[in-house]
């Protein structure tokens, strides 16, 4: 089966032409069989791949009295808000009454939220007075809006571990902020994630 007919189909050489030594075309297939079975074994043993991983999340205790809660310094606070269609907004410190510090960002690419976080981090480091823990004052508040999806929330939580932010909180959005998100969502163009 694995041989080819090399008897030279009909073409006859002249008497003066020297015949080359006929080499056998029979190939030893044993290594190929070995390889085949090796691959089979591999596929049998690796049928359960891509194990899901788990992202840990600690929730804050709601029952703590307001005056016992951790207070965030205004200079170190960054609030991230998520809207519909992968829109993302942020403001630093406290939201101004005229909402002039309510800015928009994106999940990746230009003006990404990662850059915003890194910039904030650098700022907190620069004004820090404690050399042992320069990022002590950095607190990121995550406020998912009513229309954002679960992926957005996970992406932001993931962003916290990517940028090694130690203090962050998942907090409910305020009405005024939700209104701002809705207003901005309506005017902004839908962006891909």
């Amino acid at each position: 089966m694995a041989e080819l007919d090399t008897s030279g189909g009909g073409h006859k050489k002249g008497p003066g032409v020297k015949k080359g030594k006929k080499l056998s075309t029979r190939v030893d297939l044993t290594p190929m069989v070995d390889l085949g079975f090796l691959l089979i074994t591999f596929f049998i043993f690796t049928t359960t791949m891509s194990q899901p991983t788990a992202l840990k999340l600690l929730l804050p205790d709601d029952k703590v009295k307001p005056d016992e809660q951790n207070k965030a310094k205004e200079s170190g606070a960054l609030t991230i808000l998520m809207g519909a269609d992968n829109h993302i907004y942020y403001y630093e410190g406290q939201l101004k009454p005229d909402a002039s510090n309510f800015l928009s960002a994106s999940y990746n690419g230009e003006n990404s939220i990662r850059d915003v976080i890194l910039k904030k981090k650098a700022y907190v480091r620069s004004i820090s007075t404690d050399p042992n823990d320069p990022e002590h004052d950095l607190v990121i508040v995550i406020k998912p809006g009513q229309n954002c999806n679960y992926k957005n929330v996970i992406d932001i939580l993931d962003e916290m571990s990517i940028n090694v932010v130690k203090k962050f909180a998942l907090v409910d959005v305020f009405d005024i902020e939700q209104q701002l998100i809705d207003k901005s969502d309506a005017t902004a163009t839908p962006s891909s994630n």
Partner: protein
Amino acid sequence: MGRAKLPRKSTAIDMTAMCDVAFLLLSFFILTTKFKPSEAIAVTTPSSVSSKVAPNKDFVLVTIDKDGKVFLTIDDKQKREQVANSMNTTKNLGIDVAKFKAASFIGSSFSGLNSFLSISEENRKGDLLPGIPVKDTSNNELTVWMQAVNEAYAGMKMDLLLKGDNLSKYPSFKGVLTAFKKNNIQKFQMVTNPENAPAGSELYKKSMNGEKQEN
């Protein structure tokens, strides 16, 4: 007596046939390799940089599907029975414990629970079921379920997992969080797909330096 000499036969075996079989099997295994078993509730999980492998036995899993419907899975059958019994006593639901024990997940309101349990296992598909109501803050039934689960796991370590779909909206997630918080569950894990830390980020640099993720 002169014996007829047998012609000496070559010991080389034609490997072609064996090779054919090997590759036939190989192609069969490649084609039938299923990376994930199909599940009753279709959920596409988001990805995260977390490298911790999710526990795969004796877990309590809350699933949020793409329409925001919530399902509860208790892996341990013994615990399922305990939960059913305590629900029967506290809420007087009249659950058929044997059926409840056999059900792989729970996905209906209290009132629809008996009709839910009467559906056969193979017809119990996530997209056809109502899910556990969580969005209404005054009637968050998951709170009651989690309370029963908490009791069943009293004094033991509970692996609580949350598996949400990419497209599910935040209010369902919030409803689930509220149910957890009301039962003083502040620690849980979210099932995600593994992903590498983006190049150049701080976590990436850390992992390059051989530091382990703290989780």
